[in-house]
């Protein structure tokens, strides 16, 4: 879902840059107050895992692939603000080093795959866990639901940005983006649940870290 240069008009690019800069700035302030020693290696591992996993596109339907975004996973383990910081790191490196996602679209990409994916994934995960009660099963179900929704909602914002930029009318872009990402989101949900299952089986204490 990395938007390249040329897709967004100036107003959309600038607006999303301002919102993302504000979100990242606030995340840095809060992380500065709340991060502890035990968060540090997890921050590094999340960045490394999400970058590597994003390279592994999986086929979805005829001629279309998808890959993990990872915002929901990062937010579930670290909290939505620290998750946003990790996603911003991933997206900045992908943009500057790997030319994946345009420099002028970096604000929109951090907004969609950082802020939107992390907050949607985290709060839906929390909602599912509070409905089902704390258990390993509700962690895995909540992870799936949160991760699926993170991709779905991010794709809706991406469609709105494309429509506002005059690329494609909202009535065309929205169903197309939401439709294909409803399928890609299943992959996101399965991978996120699998990682959470691995973490609960090997280092369940990591799920108990304070969320930032």
């Amino acid at each position: 879902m990395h938007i390249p240069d040329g897709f967004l008009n100036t107003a959309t690019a600038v607006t999303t840059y301002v919102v993302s800069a504000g979100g990242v700035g606030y995340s840095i302030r809060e992380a500065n107050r709340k991060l502890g020693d035990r968060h540090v290696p997890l921050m590094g591992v999340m960045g490394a895992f999400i970058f590597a996993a994003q390279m592994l596109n999986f086929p979805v339907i005829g001629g279309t692939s998808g890959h993990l975004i990872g915002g929901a996973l990062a937010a579930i383990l670290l909290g939505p603000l620290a998750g946003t910081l990790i996603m911003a790191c991933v997206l900045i490196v992908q943009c500057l080093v790997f030319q994946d996602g345009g420099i002028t679209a970096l604000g929109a990409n951090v907004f969609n795959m950082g802020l939107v994916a992390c907050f949607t994934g985290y709060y839906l995960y929390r909602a599912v866990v509070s409905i089902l009660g704390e258990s390993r099963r509700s962690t895995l179900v909540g992870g799936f639901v949160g991760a699926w929704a993170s991709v779905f909602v991010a794709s809706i914002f991406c469609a709105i940005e494309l429509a506002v930029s005059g690329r494609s009318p909202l009535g065309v872009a929205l169903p197309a983006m939401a439709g294909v990402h409803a399928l890609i989101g299943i992959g996101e949900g399965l991978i996120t649940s699998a990682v959470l299952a691995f973490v609960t089986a090997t280092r369940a204490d990591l799920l108990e870290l304070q969320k930032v």
Partner: protein
Amino acid sequence: MKLKWWHVALLIALGLAILSPLASPWPDGLERVAEDKGFIEAALEPAFELIPDYVFPGLGNERLATILAGLVGTLILFGAGYGLGALLKGQR
């Protein structure tokens, strides 16, 4: 040196990077929509290139070049995440 949990986790991430040549080459969701709805040609070439398309430049073998790009990126992101965490934590 005793192996810590995150050493193992970093090795798993590097292992995923080594699998990167197996990734589906098909366009992703946004690229598919941009092709179908006729605005893919609006995309501009990047202003500069370092490791474009996750293929490390100057290597003849594309699989190796993809794996190397993946390993480099995975290590950069580990350093960025760990470094940012250590920096922010240290300011308390």
